[in-house]
């Protein structure tokens, strides 16, 4: 295992890990602040009214850029060994599998509001009016 990297050292011959100049920490922090303000402002614009998918993609993309910056610089992942990279990416890949499985499974799942899978998704509010009488009956029974 090696702790010597391509990036130049900063005058610390006996350093254990990588020393990063203060300016990089500061710039990363202000970038994170700007991205947080941007994501709140984008949400305040209510683009989800026009496209919920677009709002989700934009919010998650901004979050992922922030996560990348924190991991790369604050957590020094950029300067870590390959094996550390593997430790960091394995859970993300497993999480991706779990989420992908969930999303693939969802449209075919029989749920209280989706009694007809792989077909038209009935919204809960429609369902509420359709089955309001049923619920009234079941609650009167208790």
């Amino acid at each position, binding site marked *: *295992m*090696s*702790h*010597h990297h391509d990036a130049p050292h900063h005058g*610390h011959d*006996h*350093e*254990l*890990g990588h*020393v*990063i100049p*203060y300016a990089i*920490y500061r710039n990363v*922090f202000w970038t*994170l*602040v700007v991205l*947080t*303000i941007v*994501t*709140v402002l984008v*949400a305040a614009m209510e683009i*989800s009214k026009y496209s*919920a998918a677009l*709002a989700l993609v934009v*919010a*998650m993309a*901004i*979050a992922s850029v*922030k*996560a990348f910056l*924190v*991991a790369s*610089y*604050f*957590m*020094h992942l950029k300067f*870590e*060994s390959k094996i*550390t990279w593997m*430790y*960091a990416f*394995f*859970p*993300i890949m*497993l*999480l991706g599998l*779990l*989420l992908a499985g*969930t*999303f693939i499974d*969802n449209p075919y799942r029989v*749920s209280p*509001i989706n009694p007809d899978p792989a077909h038209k998704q009935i*919204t*809960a*509010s429609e369902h*509420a009016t359709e089955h*309001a009488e049923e*619920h009234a009956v079941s*609650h009167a029974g208790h």
Partner: protein
Amino acid sequence: MSSSHAAAELHDEPGAPPHIHHMDTPTAYQAAKLGMWLFLATEVLLFGGLFAAFAMYHWMYNHEFHEASRQLNKWIGGFNTLVLLFSSFTAALAVDAAQHSDNKKVVRYLAITIVCALIFLGVKYFEWSGKASHGLFPGTSHVSEHGTVKFNDENFNKEYRSFFGLYYCMTGLHALHVIFGMGLLGWVMMKARKNRFSSRYYTPVEVGALYWHLVDLIWIYLFPLLYLVG
């Protein structure tokens, strides 16, 4: 990395700080860090299960989740995000100070980090108690009349509450991590007060900071999912 090379380096340091009780070889330092990364991997999967549950219920009750999400104040959530990002910044600076053998700065930066954690938890407490006072508990059967939204329809309330069930679970588990991180960083701070760290030994500072950054990373995803997108 040969150990003889590292051992040779440990002797010729005339101006070394007086209170060095311990030195880590690069191998020990790398191994400790790798151990923390392995633990962080399990943490990602722990929260990953909740993220998958959120994705599924969000798909099932899309409209209700969006309405329920609007009950959360995105400006307060955004403020708390900035507080946590700043605490991550100061945690990174604490590691940097340790790398420069400046124990006083390590104490100062970790103290700022812990104060930020307290602010975060304080804001979270007011958010939780505010929601609870409106009857927005996980799994309650009654929504208070004083709530800003009165969804009297039984069926609607059920799905609306499934959002708050996940909200309390995810932010609650995250808050537990904040509390644990405060304890961990407090312990590291006590060691720094005794001048335990130097450029040749700062493993607890770095490993503690790694844990704290993960707490920040998880919030980076929780905030837009719960407060912004819904």
